[in-house]
């Protein structure tokens, strides 16, 4: 059976995404490993998420479709970059975001940014999707098409339940 990690990487590749930057999260380890393994997607790890958005902006202007994979804590890091680079210059950026601090989260501190995540994204008028059940991944293909249709940053929040209960392990 195809894993959720493979499914996400396949959908990215099928939508022409060939440049992916990541800042890791435990929940995202599998999908990062999958992207690293594939020949059809170039993977460049970033040290900070705003740096990663800069890389994606450049790659897009160079003719590649980019994506960033990061934790929701990064929303706190990247608000200025989202507003003054990605949105201001009108660039597409799918953001596959590990939504820490939601149901089945074991680390209390993660909840502190979780409670702000959707409000911040809403304040920025960023289209936001929340994957809670494994079947929600079926929307990814449409979300990617939508992102590159409208040239906006789009957030895909993926919580512990979606990843099969990382928090219970």
């Amino acid at each position, binding site marked *: 059976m195809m894993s959720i990690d493979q499914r996400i990487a396949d959908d990215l590749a099928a939508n022409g995404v060939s440049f992916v930057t990541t800042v890791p999260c435990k929940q995202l380890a599998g999908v990062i490993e999958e992207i690293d393994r594939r020949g059809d997607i170039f993977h460049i790890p970033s040290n900070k998420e705003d740096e990663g958005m800069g890389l994606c902006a450049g*790659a897009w202007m160079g003719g590649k479709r980019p994506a960033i994979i990061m934790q929701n804590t990064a929303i706190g890091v990247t608000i200025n970059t989202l507003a003054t680079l990605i949105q201001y210059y009108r660039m597409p950026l799918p953001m596959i975001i590990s939504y820490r601090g939601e149901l089945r989260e074991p680390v209390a501190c993660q909840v502190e940014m979780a409670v702000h995540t959707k409000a911040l994204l809403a304040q920025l008028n960023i289209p936001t999707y929340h994957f809670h059940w494994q079947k929600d991944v079926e929307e990814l293909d449409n979300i990617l098409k939508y992102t590159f249709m409208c040239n906006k940053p789009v957030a895909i929040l993926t919580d512990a339940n979606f990843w099969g209960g990382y928090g219970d392990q």
Partner: protein
Amino acid sequence: MIRSEILKEIAPVLRNELVVCNIGIPSQELHAIDDQPTNFYMLGTMGLASSIGLGLALAQPKPVIVIDGDGSILTNLGTLPTIGNNAPGNYILMIIDNGSYGSTGDQPTYTSQRTDLAGMARAAGCARVVEVQDKDTGPALEEALASSEATVLVVKCDSGNAKMPVITMDPVVIRDRFMKAVAG
């Protein structure tokens, strides 16, 4: 020499290349000295010129020159290891190191004291790191282009700004004409 004098001197070299230019007065100066569709002006987002340029260099084969500053590099220091481990041969990061935050009133940065950006770039894994004085910028830049090796060029110069108008071009226009120049 101050930054605007360096930009005037190297304008004939920059004119033929893709240039990603740092936020604030550096972009205003370049725009006023020699506006080109091959220039990408940053209007916001301090610190990300080197990252935007790296993404661009990785995505397509034409040479990319990033005009950055010491203050902006210090605000995004994580960029140096990413460059040191990934930069392709068409990437040139030129750091105009005048030891100050020029766009905000020339407050000193730490490179005016004990911090050595060329040393930091080497320690981050950048293989070709060249430090020059302002008057030697042109030849050093042409050498970097000819080398076809990823280069970090640290240009030591005086602090100071030329009085230039704010860029009023719409960001989407800047980006669109730049993308056409990249693809052309």
